[in-house]
């Protein structure tokens, strides 16, 4: 029996879909069988980020309404043999095409076959959110260091705490160390004390993430980047390992600067 994790944020554009794609890919790299569900009906894009757009035949609404079997709608990612699957959202219906009860049944069924079911939640707190949360056992809240994103995260955490699921965990995305250092944005500590939930990981802002999303290859597949390491660390934490938070200092400093930093302490 697998586990269903919903990835949500309240605010749009903080990186829910990118996070879902990367966590899913990283879990598959750890030999876990993963199914990603895009619940953003009408505005799907998890398929694009995974580079699976062209292989969609059936979608979530088709499955729920019984036009196809679940297995027919699942899109297999050929880069990982039989480990990573996507259940894409419908593009032609809207969020009311599915009910929370239907989602719950669907997720329960998928959990029998998969180790992890990651549910990509749409922005907002309406029907789409309710659908996404319905079948979840755990929740991950994604935020950025912007105040508006943190406010919305607070709201969503409040709503999640009323559901019968485990206490949500936090991912802070798009961290720009320089801004934090100068006090121009909230720092990691401030955000976690404000929201008072456990921190699952932090991900630095990286141009490479945008580049790889546009190519349809999640960043975790290029392990040299900081963002990839950050996502892989989060997955190791999800799997129960204890991994220290990554340092936000720029690692491409010269040898001399490193020695200097040592003495500066």
């Amino acid at each position, binding site marked *: 029996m697998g586990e269903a994790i919903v990835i949500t944020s309240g605010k749009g554009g903080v990186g829910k879909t990118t996070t879902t794609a990367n966590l899913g890919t990283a879990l598959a790299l750890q030999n876990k069988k993963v199914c990603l569900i895009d619940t953003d009906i009408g505005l799907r894009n998890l398929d694009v980020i995974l580079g699976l757009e062209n292989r969609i035949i059936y979608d979530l609404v088709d499955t729920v309404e019984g036009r196809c079997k679940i297995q027919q709608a699942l899109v297999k990612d050929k880069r990982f043999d039989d480990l990573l699957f996507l259940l894409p959202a419908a593009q032609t219906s809207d969020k009311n095409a599915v009910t929370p009860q239907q989602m719950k049944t669907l997720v329960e069924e998928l959990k029998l076959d998969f180790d992890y079911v990651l549910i990509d939640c749409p922005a907002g707190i309406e029907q789409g959110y309710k659908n996404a949360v319905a079948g979840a056992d755990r929740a991950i809240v994604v935020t950025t260091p912007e105040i508006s994103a943190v406010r919305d995260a607070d*709201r969503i955490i409040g709503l999640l705490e009323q559901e019968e699921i485990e206490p949500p965990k936090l991912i802070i995305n798009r961290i720009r160390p320089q801004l934090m250092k100068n006090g121009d944005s909230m720092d990691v500590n401030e955000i976690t004390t404000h929201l*008072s939930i456990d921190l699952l990981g932090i991900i630095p802002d990286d141009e490479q993430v945008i580049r790889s999303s546009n190519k349809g290859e999640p960043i975790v597949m290029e392990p040299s980047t900081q963002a990839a390491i950050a996502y892989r660390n989060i997955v190791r934490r999800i799997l129960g390992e204890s991994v220290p938070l990554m340092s936000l200092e720029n690692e491409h400093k010269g040898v001399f600067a490193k020695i200097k930093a040592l003495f500066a302490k």
Partner: protein
Amino acid sequence: MKHLTTKQLVLIKGTKEGLVLQLDDQCAYSDLLDELKRKVTEDGLEGQAEVTIHVGNRYCCQEQLKEILHIVQQSKHLKVSKIKSDVITVEECNQKLLKSQSATYIGIVRSGQEIRAEGDLVVIGDVNPNGKVVAGGSIYVMGRLKGIAHAGAQGNRDCVIAASWLEATHLKIADLMELMTNEVTILAEKPEMECAYIHSNGQIAIDRLQDLRILRPNLSTFKGGS
């Protein structure tokens, strides 16, 4: 004949506060009404006097109180100022209890959430921005108050809002509201251990928590000790 019985069912007494109509609480209600009708139409009364009706230990429903009031008001000489009773229903008693009790909420009041209490409210945890706490009495937050607080929601202007960290965006006490914008001068640099109250100048002011014993000594319900 009833009116010859020795016990009077309706007593008219003069007190410092004016006349009191003391109604017997043991006799039958219908007998009481008869006697009352007779008493208020007696010729002995003159001028116009304010009168308090005291129904004693008899429980009268609203209809009955209206009936009594109606009878007394038929007399040109009596003007009813209020009706007193020694009994209240269990429901009314519970309501009063609720208002005098303090409710405790342990947790974080997050954005979009609202916590309400009839009496005092103690929050152990933070009140985050856009979170709201409302109380009929005072509000005490052991944690950071960063959202909206409304004390004395039923109009009690003596209520206060106290917090370990008072950084609210909106403070409301009774019918007064203060927006905690940067222009407000009452904001402290370090908003630790503070309380907001209605100052005698009619505006919301903020002071040290320790000053509460001077500002609102009546809020203390503690008796005894030395």
